């Protein structure tokens, strides 16, 4: 009897597929790298009502989800410098680690969270294309599902050493990659 599914070889193991996965990972990395450029300390646009502050305010002015709007209005905006630094480190970290493919599955999950936060803030902002936010979230699901750092990334180079090691950091990195 002919079977379909489990006996079929996965195209994800081919060199072309691995190149495509690496291209997606590096491309998504550059999304975050370029967007770290305008998260400018120390006030992150709060004093001039521009930059990160301007876009974060959309969560309140044009709310997408009530509880998130409340959180931004009462927790994030009053402590904006702190959340500005958190945003900068998250997005620069996403760009850095996805670019080289290190601990990629961890950063894919962080990317899903950060993309969701951006979506909840800016989805109703004027002149925005809603699918750009959905695609950003979905791209990180793809990076997680394919463990994209194993394709031409540092994860792929170091995982054999992590697997051969019994140390705690190696076991953790094995799980995060």
């Amino acid at each position, binding site marked *: 009897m002919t079977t379909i599914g489990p006996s079929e070889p996965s195209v*994800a*193991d081919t060199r072309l597929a691995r190149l495509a996965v690496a291209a997606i990972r590096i491309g998504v*990395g*550059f999304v*975050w*790298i*370029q967007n*770290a*450029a*305008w*998260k*400018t*300390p*120390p006030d992150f646009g709060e004093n001039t009502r521009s930059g990160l502050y301007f876009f974060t305010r959309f969560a309140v002015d044009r709310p997408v989800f009530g509880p998130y709007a409340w959180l931004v209005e009462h927790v994030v905006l009053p402590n904006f410098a702190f959340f500005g630094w958190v945003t*900068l480190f998250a*997005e*620069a*970290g996403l*760009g*850095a*680690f996805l*670019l*080289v493919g*290190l601990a990629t599955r961890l950063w894919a999950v962080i990317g899903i969270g950060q993309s969701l936060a951006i979506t909840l803030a800016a989805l109703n902002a004027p002149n925005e294309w809603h699918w750009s936010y959905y695609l950003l979230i979905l791209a990180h699901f793809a990076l997680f*599902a*394919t*463990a994209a750092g*194993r394709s*031409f990334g*540092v994860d*792929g*180079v*170091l*995982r*054999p*050493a992590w*697997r*051969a090691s019994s140390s705690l950091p190696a076991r953790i990195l094995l799980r995060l990659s």
Partner: protein
Amino acid sequence: MRANRYGRAALALGFGALASSLFALGPGSGGQADFVEIRGAGLVVILLLGACAVVGGVLGNRVIVIIAGAGFAVAAAIQLVQFGRPTNWLAGDGSTFALLLGLAVGLVAVGTARWEQSSREKRTSEGEPDRAT
């Protein structure tokens, strides 16, 4: 000397750093195809440390690779402290910081690995598929 896979990884990261210098030809990180702000002293730092990583990879010398990674880490720290302020030695912004950070963590991670493969490690890297599970 023939580089092992760690050396090849360092080589790739070094060439990546050198290739990123092409962003210096663009209008700046606000441009649609100009993803990273690379200018002035930042460009020199990336070229020098990228070349250092390439040399480390070609020679299979992990100390040189670690030095390159540590150099990128110092540059990233300087960029983080200074961007958005009047004094900005590397003439960069958050995108420059992110790129320098990526090159730093990549090279340090590769450089600090044990470059002599154990028999168990060889078996894992050559004989066993590493599927996304």
